[in-house]
């Protein structure tokens, strides 16, 4: 089971991050966080962009898992899934910087 957990770690983080961004966007719009301005942008935008970047960084940090892999198979699959997870976080989270939040 450890192997399955390790090779899924990057993608589990993506699933968590994706859900978190969607939930923050929904909650932020519902409770008016987009109306509060901070350093030239809405508080909701700051919140989402910082969360997104932290999630991408956390995804990349999981590359450390490949160092302790017990076999070539585990190393290769972990590397691929961690990169897939971080890449997916980068792409699927990018609307937080590019699109209108609540309209």
């Amino acid at each position: 089971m450890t192997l399955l957990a390790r090779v899924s770690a990057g993608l589990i983080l993506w699933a968590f991050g994706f859900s978190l961004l969607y939930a923050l966007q929904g909650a932020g719009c519902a409770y008016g966080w987009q109306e509060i301005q901070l350093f030239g942008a809405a508080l909701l935008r700051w919140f989402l962009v910082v969360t997104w970047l932290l999630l991408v960084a956390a995804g990349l940090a999981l590359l450390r898992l490949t160092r302790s892999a017990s076999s070539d198979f585990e190393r290769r699959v972990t590397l691929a899934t961690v990169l897939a997870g971080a890449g997916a976080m980068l792409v699927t989270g990018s609307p937080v910087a590019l699109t209108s939040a609540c309209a």
Partner: protein
Amino acid sequence: MNALRRHRALEAIWGAPKGWRGTAVSVNHSDIGKRFVVAAFVFFAIGGVLAMMIRAQLATPGSAFVGPDIYNQLFTMHGSIMMFLFAIPMFEGLALYMLPKMLGSRDMAFPRLSAYGWWCYLFGGTILIASMIFGVAPDGGWFMYTPLSSKAFTPGINADVWLLGITFVEISAISAAIEITVSVLKLRAPGMRLDRMPLFAWYLLITALMMIVAFPPLILGSILLEVERAFDWPFFDPSRGGSPLLWQHLFWLFGHPEVYIIFLPAAGVISTVLPVLARTRILGYGWIVAALLALAFLSFGLWVHHMFTTGIPHMALGFFSAASALVALPTAVQVFAWIGTLWNGRPELKLPMLYLLGFFVIFVIGGMTGVMLAMVPFDLQAHDTHFVVAHLHYVLIGGFIFPMLAGAYYWLPHFTGRTRDDLLGKASFWMIFVGFNVTFFMMHLTGLLGMRRRVHTYPEEAGWTLLNLVSSVGSFVMAFGFALFAIDVALHLYYARRRSRNPWTAGTLEWAMPIPTPAYNIASLPTVADREPLADAPALATSLARGEGYLGQPRHGWRETMAVETTSGAIDHVVVLPGNTRLPIVTAVVTGCFFLCLLAGQYWLSLLPVAGVVALGLRWAWVLDWRRDIGPLPIGRGEVAPIHREAAGAPGWWGSAFLLVADGTALASLLFGYAFLWVIAPNWPPPERIDGGLMPGLLAAVAAAAGSLFARRSLAASADGALGPAGRAALAGAAAQLGTIVALGTLGVTALPAPQEHAYAACSWALLAYSLLHALIALLCMGFARARVAAGHVSPRRTLDLRVARLFIDYSGATLAIVLVCLLAPAVAS
């Protein structure tokens, strides 16, 4: 013991009686798998006839072939049958039949569960088909959108048939998912590490895990909608704080992963068949596993692309549009691995390969139109048109039926022990391939011209007449192709040459046994040192028949197979599986009575079958009789291993753990719904919130915590051999759970508003009901544990019953804490 005597002894242990009695009591995976496959094909034929009726209706404008009411039933039942009664059960059947053979095992981990799932599928499917005969079939579309499916717009039982019938059938899907997961993880041949497993097992493992997470949202949604229809709890009624979008979310949380749940097993067939016919090994084993994992996760981030036109903010559209486009990448990794394998090998254009080439053409087109629909501006134009119908059929028929037909021709010799020439099979291929493209390519065009799906007719001046006529002609060509396939298979059963094992010179273990296979699969279990054991050792089959592997000596009438450590494949323990029994069919009949009572609106009467299911469930667990310690058993080759009831990682524990994962997903979906309605739905905040309830809530939490402590104490005492204190602790645990039930009931009655008033109250009551149900299950677990201790089933070595009971009790306690926080937070906040 010579090979023939071993065969007779094993056949006597693993076989089933002849005739109807054998049909009713058999739990053998080959029997159950074959039944699933045959029944799924029958349902496919019924769904196919409905499709032909749909095309007959649309062939000409203003057709009077059927009226709108019947047409609504036709397309709803066509979609529901193909998704729930054909695609999922078909792959379940293949998995149940094939997995143990490929993994070098003698059966699945929970044979009685397989049989129970089969009977639930058969009875549930029969209810759905019977509803068509009585003219009350579901008619709201296969995704049953509210408010169309709510009481106001579907006052008859049509929607109830769908909600209850599908939920009944889904019991078999959840059963199969748990069965497959535990079997792949634990019941493999010794030495078969995870990275030595056949790719087919990887595909099925990941599909099964997806099912464990994907099906509970649908089951929960169906329960909520049925409760709304039956008792007026307004989960989806916007005038009382509900939202029809909640149904869409819950449905598509299941519905989109479902597409991949259907595709992945078929892709597993491709990854198995294609390298054999290309006479090489699969290219990029590790990359394919990584792509599978990525696909599985990403497929859960796409569901909102079915809801692009519901007025969702741009940012959310962006999330799901990006994920929808991104999911093409892991799919492409697999496609390129298959193309590379073909390039690398020396492909033979045999019949299964023909179907695989058909798959490539159709599936790639379906994938490309999928990327088109993932783009929001295009989807806004094409949504709910025949373009979408064309896309989904290209993906599902291309991605599922063509590979499964390739698999059918590849594995037919395994089922029948015979091979035939390809003439009829090739004719059927070309009719299906040409007929399919003529039918569905036209639908891209009618869709782009603006023809909406689910319309029962259209005016001549719309300009869609010729395209529709061609499409209808194509559908009949395709149907004749499928009929030819069925005839070819029937001829194969009776008029084909007998063959010895392994006609394709394949390397995987399912070909290391006689064909057709005996009930026990293999006379002894191999040691696996390669992904293709037969390529490594061509004489392996003979050696196993001689009993030179593990468990080659039948004993005590036990159905024995090996369990391994999950990752390394090292020998872990011997599993003794239960034999033939009537329990699965009887339990399925009683379960069916429960659903029929609900369908008839006899809610109080439905408590009777519920009590019956509980009694049968306890009997189910009780008959696993083991009142003495066995100790390490010889398993052959001079080695010994403990029996599963005396081992730490027994399949029963793992099965319970995965069942709780599914259960937890249902709770997470309910909490999502609760939060969604708070944030998004109109008419919030609710007029009346929880009033008090802190004290009973606190008492419930304390009682549940005490229950968990007593369960631990009971287990610890058993492990120390103190069976008296263990029994007393179990009894105290049961009393604590009773306290939880009373406290929760008090909380509901004294503090919560009536559930019909507002969606807030309905959700609160639903959460409370969830916890009450689990406290009741925990009570039963503790009572059962007490009885097992008293009857001598538990010893310091045999603590499996108590460990499983503790799992359920801890889960009940942990979820109760979450539910109480959600219930009491509004009270604390106000």
